[in-house]
């Protein structure tokens, strides 16, 4: 009781056992490897692959077929198929073709979508006139546009590009609109009180403020783009003009009965999609350095 009544005026002299200010930074890799979560994830993935192998091979080993999964080729076969295809130029060409289509449609969607979204957010009249038709058309799934698109555009390639564009366009515009609208109005007022012109406001506040939403929209739109490109490739099928690509690869493998290759194709697209999303996220983090704090 008496201790608490002392009023220490000078800091108590003690040896500090721990250096209070020395930073001890660990690299990202170090952190990842030392975390339990990381190893649990590894275990889970290995377990998943093992389970898959067992279920697929069950018929071979015991004559009892596991429903559904039993019909899927086991991972070992898939791996074998992949090592085979790895050396074929055609496989990598499909990568190239699909990626090209995805980025073409995607960039078109960004180039048109971002300004459109920003205009919708900024100008009241523009919004009131152009938003309703936009909202009416938005729920129509992009793929439903495919036949109409094929009718309209001269080549299959263009028609698929158009549908790809549509898919990403709606998402990007919605995200940009939402992002621009959610900019704290106080930022705008602060800028205005410092004498900013309309153009200044746009360039220095609205644009950077919308960037996070642009990138979110881009990431989601990217996923949709892949789906649409795939659909286009699978539907239009065959050969040269407007053909080829990973979707076509999957479909023709299916038709040809080489199911293991189908899975190779699926995984390839998964990887391609993941890489493209990562690219977007990376570009996003570079262009938004202020967000790296957390």
């Amino acid at each position, binding site marked *: 009781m008496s201790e608490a009544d002392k009023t220490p005026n000078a800091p108590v002299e003690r040896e500090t056992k721990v250096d209070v200010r020395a930073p001890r930074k660990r690299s990202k890799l170090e952190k990842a490897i030392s975390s339990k979560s990381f190893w649990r994830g590894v275990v889970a993935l290995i377990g998943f692959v093992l389970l898959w192998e067992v279920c697929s091979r069950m018929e071979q080993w015991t004559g009892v077929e596991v429903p559904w999964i039993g019909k899927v080729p086991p991972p070992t076969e898939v791996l074998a198929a992949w090592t085979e295809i790895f050396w074929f130029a055609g496989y990598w060409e499909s990568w190239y073709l699909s990626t090209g289509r995805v980025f073409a449609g995607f960039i078109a969607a960004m180039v048109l979508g971002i300004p459109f979204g920003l205009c919708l957010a900024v100008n009241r009249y523009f919004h009131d006139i152009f938003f309703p038709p936009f909202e009416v058309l938005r729920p129509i799934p992009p793929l439903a546009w495919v036949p*109409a698109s094929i009718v309209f555009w001269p080549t299959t390639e263009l028609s698929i590009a158009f549908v790809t564009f549509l898919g990403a366009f709606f998402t990007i515009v919605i995200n940009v609109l939402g992002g621009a609208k959610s900019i704290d109005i106080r930022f705008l007022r602060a800028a205005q009180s410092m004498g900013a012109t309309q153009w200044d406001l746009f360039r220095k506040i609205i644009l950077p403020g919308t960037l996070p939403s642009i990138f979110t929209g881009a990431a989601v739109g990217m996923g949709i783009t892949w789906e649409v490109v795939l659909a286009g490739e699978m539907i239009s099928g065959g050969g040269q003009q407007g053909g080829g690509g990973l979707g076509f690869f999957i479909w023709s493998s299916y038709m040809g009965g080489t199911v293991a290759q189908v899975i190779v194709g699926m995984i390839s697209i998964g990887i391609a999609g993941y890489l493209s999303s990562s690219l977007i996220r990376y570009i996003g983090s570079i262009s938004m350095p202020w967000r790296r704090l957390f």
Partner: protein
Amino acid sequence: MTEKIAMKQTSQAPTGLALTLYNWKARLKTPTPYLMALGIVLWIGTYYLFVEGWKLPRFNKLPGPVEVITEWLSENPAWGISLFTPQYYDHVIVSCRRIVIAFTIATGIGVPLGLFMGWSKTFRDYTFPILETIRPIPILAWVPLAILMFTGLETPVIYLATLASLFVTTLNTLLGVESIDSEYFRAANCLGSKPHHVFWHVVVPGALPFIFTGLQISIGVAWFSLVAAEMVSGEFGLGYMIVDSYMNVTYVTMVIGMLTLGFVGWFSSALVRIAGNRMMQWRIRALALEGR
């Protein structure tokens, strides 16, 4: 006292239908609704002009709005599908039925899965990597495998829609749990809750807003995947109807199909949103007081 005054004001804040009507009346006084009408008119007008009026080169292959509307509303449609033919509703019902099944299964698995992943770090550590590895694979890439795995035509189609929905629902539910302010957990623990209390009284209600946002997205995604699947391998349904009419060069029916899809998609999304609002009364009332 001051309290009585505060009480009077809050009890007079409009909610529900009264609020909606009030909002409508207020909006009619602004230029907004008239501009919106102008927008729609402009759009349909342009569509009409391009296709039927001026008959521009590429556009003349498409059916124009007049053609589509007359067909849609006619009792004896030239191409067999209109609001008055039973086949139309057959297609609509088949697609809707599939969506209901897919959405129900996806929600039934996805929400508990997401809740549990948010609740238990261990569980999440084991399941999240698997989810994230499979998720990048586009739904359509599953089509051949789905056809192989499942017998019949109905199941693969439903499977694809379910899968797409499942990912979205699970992820959003997980995000919802993570978004709950940790102070609520502390408060609950302080008050002497056992883990299952925390789950039912904090985790579930706290995640509801995100869950419902996720459900709205997921139903959109379900439609997207369903249409894709129907187009590739179906016998009935709106997606099939669109492809079929394309193959038969009856483009009017195709456009009818597209517009129907848009409408049904929007309607189902609105249903989910309304259900969400009913379940989250506390949020609606709080937002109403803020004037939103």
